[in-house]
Every structure is written in structure tokens, then in C-alpha cells.
């Protein structure tokens, strides 16, 4: 697969390394001549020095023969323009843009960029997951973020320890779909008891995820 990386600095370098390791054919356009040289020396990639939004330069870098053009710059407008020219003039199969302002994500995709990745949104999602991890729980949004899948560990302090599932008052929009016990998965029934060391996998609406987590991981009153 042929991939053209446009703009950016460290991101481009790290991606070049990762893609070369996977045997992709990588080509780089960068405005900084010294940076082009560094990448060429370090990873033996073909580099073209200049403004990646210049169609004649994209032609020189054979954008029309690329399977993917990835715009990795810190400037959103630059990334958008690279992808639009690649798509409209060179009919590149896939265009990919880094988006710095998450608000631009939907807009860029509407304008024909095939895939946008917002680093900010990515970090925000990670922080959110980590925040819920403080409740010792892993959280995974599915179905466009409408459904939450949580993994809640049950410890010996838990208020629901040894309770049968039917005894636990969970919110209406939630269900314990699976229990992981001693590395085995267990599809629970109403009279299954929760034991210390179990991990309960809960499906719930996003709104009730916190409540479910609180009930299951809640400490016993002493």
C-alpha cells in the first residue's frame, strides 16, 4: 500500500516509522528541508520538500497513485485543503486528516475527507474513561455512545457481595450481561450470586452507567 504523509513533524516521523515497520510504501511531503532530510536519512523514505497544498507538488509526489493521503499538520485548514485537493484533483482513494479542533471533525467529513481523527477528542475520551476508572470500572461506549458497557470488579467490601442478581436493585435501563470469574466467562441467571473477585460486565444506557457502577462497586456499610 502506498501512503503519502503531508505536513506535521514528530507525528509524521513516528507514523513513518510505524508504517515502514509494517512494510507500507511511505512518501513524505514537508515544508522543512532539513526535516525532509532527517526523515529520508532515518527511514529511507522518499521525500518531497515544499507546500503540501500545492497541486503541482502533490503531482510530483504522485498523489494520484497513492492509496492514502494523510494530512498530519497542526493547522486544520492546511489539512483540509490537502485532502480536498488530493480527493478532487488526484482522486486519491482514501484521505485522512488530523483535526485539532474537534468541532471541525464532522465538517471535514462532510466536505469529503474520508477519516478525521481529533487528538483533542481522543484525549478527552481517554480522560473520561480514566475518570470512571477511579470507580475501578472500565467503560466502553457502543452504538454511537448510546449504550455503555462497563466492567465492574466486585471485591470483598462490596455491598452486593453474595447477593443474588435478582436481589440487586439496578436501574431499569441496565443488565448484568456476563460475569468473569477466575478467568472464565459466565452467563448469569437470576439466582447467580456475586462473589469477591468477580468482574460484572454491565450493559446499560449511558445515563444510568454511573448509577450501576455505584451500586455494584459501592462499599458495605460497617
Amino acid at each position, binding site marked *: 500500500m502506498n501512503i503519502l504523509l503531508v505536513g506535521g513533524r514528530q507525528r509524521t516521523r513516528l507514523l513513518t516509522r510505524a508504517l515502514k515497520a509494517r512494510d507500507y510504501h511511505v512518501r513524505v511531503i514537508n515544508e522543512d528541508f532539513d526535516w525532509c532530510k532527517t526523515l529520508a536519512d532515518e527511514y529511507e523514505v522518499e521525500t518531497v520538500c515544499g507546500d503540501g*497544498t*500545492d*497541486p*503541482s507538488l502533490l503531482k510530483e509526489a504522485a498523489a494520484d497513485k497513492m492509496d492514502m493521503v494523510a494530512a498530519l499538520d497542526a*493547522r*486544520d*485548514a*492546511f489539512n*483540509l*485543503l490537502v485532502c*480536498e*485537493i488530493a480527493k*478532487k*484533483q488526484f482522486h486519491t482513494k482514501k484521505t485522512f486528516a488530523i483535526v485539532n*479542533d474537534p*468541532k*471541525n471533525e464532522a*465538517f471535514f467529513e*462532510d*466536505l469529503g475527507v474520508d477519516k478525521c481523527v481529533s487528538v483533542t477528542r481522543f484525549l478527552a475520551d481517554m480522560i473520561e474513561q480514566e475518570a470512571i476508572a477511579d470507580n475501578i470500572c472500565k467503560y466502553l461506549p457502543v452504538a454511537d455512545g448510546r449504550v455503555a458497557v462497563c466492567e465492574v470488579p466486585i471485591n470483598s467490601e462490596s455491598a452486593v457481595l453474595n447477593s443474588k442478581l435478582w436481589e440487586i436493585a439496578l436501574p431499569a435501563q441496565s443488565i448484568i450481561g456476563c460475569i468473569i470469574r477466575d478467568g472464565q466467562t459466565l452467563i448469569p441467571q437470576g439466582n447467580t450470586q456475586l462473589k469477591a473477585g468477580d468482574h460484572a460486565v454491565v450493559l446499560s444506557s449511558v445515563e444510568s452507567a454511573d448509577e450501576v457502577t455505584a451500586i455494584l462497586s459501592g462499599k458495605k456499610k460497617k
Partner: protein
Amino acid sequence: MRFFGREKDESVIIIGCGRLGRSLACAMSGQGQDVTVIDRDENALKRLPSSYRVSVIAGDGTDTDILELAGIRNAGSLIAATGDEAANIMIAQIASRHYQIKNVLAYIDDMSKTVSCQGMNIITVCPTVLSVNEAQRVLFHAKEEKAV
């Protein structure tokens, strides 16, 4: 036109307060248009002559929050006149696609980049082409030829 208050669809938003943006702002404000100028650089905005009634906003013109602050939802025209072509193109596309502004004009130096605006309701203006045309007109009184 100001006598009738702030008419919907009449205001003009200009992004970029360099020599070009500033001149546009003064000219249009002088004609009685309701003009708002956006620039990232506050100092650039301060260079607008105070004799003209122009609203100014310091901020990034590619940011929809800033554009909304400038009243893009009610604007009739938008001119993208920053020194950054890519930004001009992006702003013009936001204005045309996202806000359905009737008259959108973008300054693009390199005509080959206008391919990105194909099929959109955006007027692209290339200062170089205009200058070449003007030079030919003045020097040779020739018919304005389409410069490449």
C-alpha cells in the same frame, strides 16, 4: 442603509485585517455597510481608522464560535482575506456549506488551489491574475486576457 437599523442579510464579515482586509473594511463601511472584521492579531485590528464604524473581533476566523460571535448566522456576505490561503478556503467553505451565506468571496493566490472550492457557491479571487490583467489593460489597452 444604516437609517433602517440592522437589516438581516446585509451585514458583511471580513476575515483578516491586513492591508487588504483593512481596505475592504474601510471601503464597505464608507458605503454604509454593516461591517465586522475578524483577525487573530489584536494589534492589526487597532490599525483600523477609528473614523469608520467597524465592529472588530479578535480571534481565529476558522473557528465557528468566533464566526458566530461575528453574527455569521445573519450575515449576507463574507470575505476571507487573510494571508493564509488554506485558512481562506476553509473559512469560505464553512460560510458557504455550513451557514449558507449567499455571497462568499475568498482570496486565493494560487489559482490551482481553487479546485478545492469546485461545486461550491464560492467566488475565488486571485490578486495575481487581477494584477496581470490590469497591467495588460493599462500598458497595451489590450483586451483583458485570461491569465493562467
